[in-house]
Structures are given as C-alpha cells and as structure tokens.
C-alpha cells in the first residue's frame, strides 16, 4: 500500500476537468457514506443530510493505511463537519482534511456536486 496515498492529489475547484458521475443519491445512506471506485482510486462520499451537504474524500485512512473512511461515522466539532475512522477513531475535517484529534497526516478532500439525483466528484488533469 506504500505509494497508494500519493495517488490522492489535491484538486482545486478552478481546475476541475472531469465531473465523474459516481452514483445516484439514493446509494448513499442518510448521514452516512459509501465508497466509489474511480479508475484505481477509492473515494468516500458522504451524504451529510442533517447539514444538507455532501462531502468526498480519499477512502484511505492515513493512520494505518486502511481503505475504510467511507464506513466512518459523521459528526461535527463546533461547526466543523468531520468523519471518524472506524479503526481508531481518528477524526478528519471534511472541509480541510486535517486530522482533528492527533497528528495523523491530512487527507484529500474532493469537490462534489449533486445534479438531477446524481452525485458527481470533481477531478483535474492530474487524474
């Protein structure tokens, strides 16, 4: 899995070249997530229905390199939306990707949009 993490590079909203059509919104549980495969990447997509927001991030938890974040639990700390990894409960901001309760390294957050019942994830030329 070494090197796996390098594949998840940051995407600037202004540089998006592809909006990948991931799945219909009903595939994602309320206030929960599911994993989407894009090329050889795994992206966790979250339907944060309590906030009426959608988020996407790498599925790979950097703590012990586990493909798992889509099965994590959503929550908030103060105003910040976050996901807690099922393995050791490291929590990551869904806005910045920063680890909020330790110094595990940051995860990559992807742009998401919802149109006509489908969820799209934004990628740039690097992908």
């Amino acid at each position, binding site marked *: *899995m*070494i090197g*796996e*993490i*390098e594949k998840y590079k940051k995407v600037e909203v202004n540089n998006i070249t592809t909006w990948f059509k*991931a*799945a219909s919104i009903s*595939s*994602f*549980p*309320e*206030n*929960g997530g*599911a*994993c*989407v*495969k894009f090329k*050889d990447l*795994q992206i966790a*997509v979250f339907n*944060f229905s*309590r*906030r009426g927001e959608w988020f996407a991030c790498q599925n790979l938890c*950097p*703590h*012990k*390199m*586990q*493909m*798992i974040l889509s*099965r*994590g*639990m*959503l*929550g*908030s*700390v*103060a105003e910040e*939306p*976050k996901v*807690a990894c*099922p*393995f050791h*409960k490291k*929590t990551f901001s869904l806005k910045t990707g920063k680890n909020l309760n330790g*110094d*595990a*390294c*940051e995860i990559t957050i992807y742009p998401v949009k919802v149109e006509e019942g489908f969820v799209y994830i934004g990628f740039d030329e690097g992908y």
Partner: protein
Amino acid sequence: MKKVIVIGNGMVGYKFCEKLRAAEGGKDFKLTVFGEEPWPAYDRVHLSAYFSGSNAEDLLMAPRQWYSDNAIELRTNELIVNIDRIQKKVFSHLGKEEEYDFLILATGSAAFVPPIKGVEKKGVFVYRTLEDLDGIISYGKQAKSAAVIGGGLLGLEAAKAVVDLGLKAHVVEFASRLMPRQLDENGSGLLKSKLEDLGISIHLSKNTAEISGNGKLTGLSFTDGTHLPVEMLVISAGIKPRDELAKGCGLQTAPRGGIIVNEFLQTEDPSIFAIGEAASYQQMVYGLVAPGYEMATQVVNQLVSNQVKPFMGFDMSTKLKLIGVEVGSFGDPFGEGEPSKTIVFEDKVKGIYKRINISQDAKRLLGGILVGDTSNYNMLWQMVQNNMPLPPEPEDLILGARGGKESQGAGVESLPDAAQICSCENVTKSDICVAISEGGMMDIPGIKSCTKAGTGCGGCMPMITDLLNHQLKSMGRKVKNVLCEHFDYSRQELLDLVKIKGIKSYDALLEDFGKGDGCETCKPAVASILASTWNELILKQDTIQDTNDRFLANIQKGGTYSVVPRIPGGEITPDKLIVIGQVAKKYGLYTKITGGQRIDLFGARVDHLPDIWEELIDAGFESGHAYGKSLRTVKSCVGSTWCRYGVQDAVSYAIRVEERYRGLRSPHKIKGAVSGCIRECAEAQSKDFGIIATEKGWNLYVCGNGGSKPQHAQLLINDVDDETCIRYIDRFLMFYIKTAEPLNRTATWLNKLEGGMDYLRDVVVNDCLGIGKELEREMDFMVETYACEWKEVVNNPELRAKFKHFVNVDEEDPTLAFQPMRGQKIPAEWGVPQSK
C-alpha cells in the same frame, strides 16, 4: 541575532526548544538542534507503549512540522563529535560545522552496561531507544525466554515488555531485594511475590559472571556457580550520562559521570549549559524527566533575562507504572534523613503494604512506601512536598478513616495554592484553579491545553480531575458527566428522556435535546440507549452505530470482518461443528477457538457477510453479538451431568441464561458464566454475573471483570433456586443498563456507585427503591422482543444491499491483502503511516 545550538534532541532538549519559543523574547534567537537518532524527540517515558501498539509517530513529542513552523532547524541523524570552545563551533560526524553563541548540552544518557564477559553476544540488548526496542521485538520472535539484568524501576519495566512479547521472563538483581533504592525489605518482598504471581521469576543477590553461548547467548552464569538458561538478555542496570563530548573539550565531568553544572546549570564555560540526564548537579544525575524539564526552563529564563530561581535539586519520588502491581515511593522512603518514627500497615491477604515515616514530633510527613495500593500516593506526596501539618492521628493517612470518622486532610481542598500538582510541567494547584475560574476551562482537555498539566507522565491526572470537580462545585456549578459537546445530559438522563418522551430515533433526540451534528461519542451511546429501551432492529439506524454494529461483525486489520455464531454455554453438536468447518472452508476464513467457548471465523469480505450468515442460519445458528456492546457469552463447565464433583447441571443452566439475555444491548459488553461446583472451572467470579452451584441451588456473584483491570465478582446472594437467581440477574442487569455511563463495565459502574455492593444488594435483593418488579418487566420485554438481527438482514434484500464495498461497481476491495500462516490466512501487516 544570537545563535543557540542544542546538542541532543531528547525529551529535555525538545522541552528547551518548546519553552524558548514560548517565552517572551524567545523568538529572537536562531535555534539549531542536533539529534543523533533518526526520529525527532519522542516520549521515552512511554517507550514501552511501543510494545502495545503505539508506533514511533504516536510517541513523538511534536511532529517534524512543528520544528519548521517554529523556525527551528532540526538535524536528526547527525552526531556532534567535537566542540571548539575557542572558536565557538561544533563539528558533526558528517564533517559539517556550525557556530554558536550559546551551547546547550542535552545529550542525555546511555544505558549502563556492566563489563560482563560476553556482553557482545547476539541476543543481548539494552532498553533505551526505539531502535533498541525494534531489536528486542524482532529477536524476541524466535526466543522463548529472556532475562533482565536489573531489578530497579527500568528493569521491571523491561521485564513487563518481555512478558508482553510472550516470553518467559526472569529478573536478575545484584542486591538482596527489588527496587533497592525505593523499597524496604518488606515492600520488596511483597512486590516480589506479586511479580512471581504474574509468572516472572526473580533471582536476587545474583552477580553475573559470564554470558554464555557460542556467538548468541544461551544463558547466564553467576558468581555463586549457578546457571540460568535463557535465549535473550536485556540489560537495565542503570544509566551512564553522555558526557564524552564535554570531556573531549575539557569541561569538568563528575567521577560517576555527568557534566558538572552549578545551580544555574552553567558549566565552567559561561556560554555552555548542560541540562537533563547529561548534567550532574552536586554529584547527582537526575534520571527523571521532571527535573530535566525544570532545568530546561531555568536556562530559557536566563537566555531571555527572566527572573531565575536557582536549581536546588529535585524530589525523586516515583511510581512504578505498567507492571500490574502498584508501587510508589516518595520523599524519604526509609526515614533515614532525620530521626523519624515509622507507621506500617500490612495486609498479607490483599497484598498491601504501606509505610509512612513521620518526624519525631509527629508534625510532618517525611516520606514512605506503598505497595499493592497507591491510591493515596499523590496526596501523601503533596503533604511531603508542602510540609503540610499531619492530622492528629497520622495512621488515618494509610488506613483511611474508620468508625464513622470523616477522612482527614486527604482531599485536594486541603492543599496549599502553591502545591505542585504536575511535576513534569511544574503546574501548581493555583495555576489549575485559575485556569478553571478565570480561564473558563471547564473540562480536562481545556485544562491540559491551557496549563499543560497532565501532558507529561500523566500521573497527576486523578488529582487534576479532583481539582476540576472541586473547583466547579465551589463555583456553584453542578458537576455532571455530560455525554459530549452535543448533549448536555448524562447517559442516565438521556435514557430517561428517551423513555418518557417515547423518542425512537437519534435524529429526533438530537433535534429536541441536543445541538450540532453529533459525533462518534454520542451516536453509539444513544444507539445503545435506544436499543436497550425499544429493542428495535439496530440497522434501522445504521449510520449511528459503531462500525461493528453497523455491519454486525467485528472489523479486522485490513478491513475484513469476523463472524461469531452463538454457541450457548459452549455446547455444540458434531453436525454444527461440521457446518462451521464447511462455511469457513468455502469462504476462506481463518478459524480459531475464542476465549469465550466458541468459534470465531476471521477475514470475511463485507459483501460475503450476508451469504455466510445465510448458510449458518440455515444450519440453526444465530448471531453471537460478538460485535455489540451486549451479552457475549455465558461460559459453562460440564457440571453434574458428567463431572464426578458437579452438584448442579451447569450446562443446561448456562444455556438457559445465555438464551434469555442474548442480544441485550447495554452500556458495555456483559459476560456470564455458570460453574457446577465450588471448583469454579467456568471462572464465574471473573464475569459480570457469575453463578456457582451449591448443594442447595446457586450462589450469584456480580460485577467481575477480566480485561486490563481485572476485578473479582462479589457475592450478591447465596443458595437461591433457578427462578430467583434469574429474577435477580434481571434486576441487576436492568439497573446497570439504566444507570451506568457509556462504556463502563459492571465492575467500573459498581466502583462508582455510592454505597457500593451493600447498596446494590439493597436495590436488587431487598428492593429498597421499590423498582424490582418494574426492572423485571422491562427485562421480560427485552426477552420477548428479541430477534436475531442477522436473520432479519439475510431475509431483507434492501438491508443485504448495504453490505458492499463499492456502490458504483460490483467489485471487491482490490487492496485486501493476506499472507499465509500455519495453513490458514492472516491479514497483511498494517501499512506504514505516510505523509504527503
């Protein structure tokens, strides 16, 4: 800008950097740090945590990024080999040089290795750095036994590590007792017998003459002619200050090692200071972090021209951590410093030894020793430190108050404001109280971040908690255990709200009584409350469940799951055993007999879980709830049906009890056991509820616990019949479920319950609250509404569809990886944490 160079990036060197950058004017220095080790400074005090799963990353004092953020040039992997005091330059082994205005020697210590013949042999280690530990771990894999030379604090810690590696441990001590510098004859004797109970062999008065073996060691030979065969050796016989650099540039060092400094930590060269374990002050090297931190602070104060109080030596009180035996030694443990009187308390049955030394006039506490129970260590140490007056009957200090008297002078409130609570960070009582009353810090994390108290060795945490509660109370605030930032209620209050208001979903509860969006603390806690109250299918609200409950299986390293069918009482037919074997074979699962008398099938893919369970359910199995905070197993022994001693049919009763409480969700897991006679082969006294057969019926024990803090169950009632016993268990479990805090086992809950066991018996047996019938009714409801949740999933296509790795393609997770082991498979090792 003046330039400061620190040699040594250990705990104290790091603390110096932190303090300098935090001090006013501390940013006006250029700062370069050299460290010989490959990692930035890490927490050596908690080095042993490396054996229990912490990685190097977790132990770092601060990540590399911190140094660059604070404009500190950190050069790890670089050893300073020479100092030129005239040109004010240091030279590294890479041939590089660097100039300084001030030089800080924080080179620490190395392990002291006595000159024994054969120390160079393979399999001989010291216990000081992460690299040492890596060596020990990998060598330990091929060994079965190991000896530790040194029966002091560090030696015993190393012995614990050896035990954790699964090796037979021996401790070899030169003196005639363990921890000779901290304990007296009696205290050591007790410690020795406790360690022997843990399976550690202790060899006293042994002088090692030679390490034998051809290339790699095979044993130790002692001067008394005896021999101890072992395959590995860890030497932990003391420390040797790293003063070689200082010596090399002509600075004075102490005969027993250490760079000589005065009370301002100055060497004889005014621009060179020495701090931490490398420094020797009045012929004394301080092998603890707290004095090292104190030294770092003093030097920082001098550099930024703050007021400086001279270093006056430091208290060496210590508590032994880790080994599973509580040991503390404080102040003057032997009462040798001045004429004194000694009070001793010993309870051989419970394994407790306490000694305090008081001044001749019985006014002051001088020091003491605690073995087996260190609960009043902090308070006693404070009394010594602060010269506090002794209560009129000083024996109360170690005996506790008796005969209706209030305990004396033992609360945090009696401490003076200047009392130092956290010695690692030098934080006083008043610092903490001010952080609470003026800084608005209302919880432990707040106090930690504001004062840094409790961030070092953590030994002061119980006192900080007491102080917080006391301070909040005195400010007129109700102290209560709220769930988290999203709910201002305790678990018990939320349970009452759920029940009274008829609330059935997490979202509704958050809407009416909470704030924010919830988190990983309150969601599972509320999920448990809802399940314990309404007993509905937990997957109705799958995203508030912890991952194990969400997928009705325990997650494993690598992201697969385990499958544990219920095998009530541990009784199983050959046909069912065959089915388990067939299913395991078909899905490629690793099988193992668990500690709970059943079989675990590991390594199932998430998308296979429903198929696996379908086959198990067809064969008559049910969920074993190994994933839930719920009833796990009721262990049985074979009992009177087969056993020549049995007086009751333990298996039948265990099955009945397990089937009654299966699926019952609770604040933490619950385990039971039934033994067929007094010999107790089912280990019932280590369970949340344990039943032991008597000639007349059953003895019921409650609130026992294995795990990391084992506690024996206590007798609730004796000689009751089948029905009565079940009724009492109903009441006991329901009362626990309704009043415990989240993730508190029954033992922890009982320890906090005011009135303890007597009160619990009053509630359950004597029904003093008049809720007995209600508790039984509630339990009956849970029993009647039980359904196997896996059966529901297997028969419900919509729920089955949730068990998939990807939502957009029908593929399995391509990153799953296994390796073979003894004819089965295990997951690949954890990945190495990466940074981008």
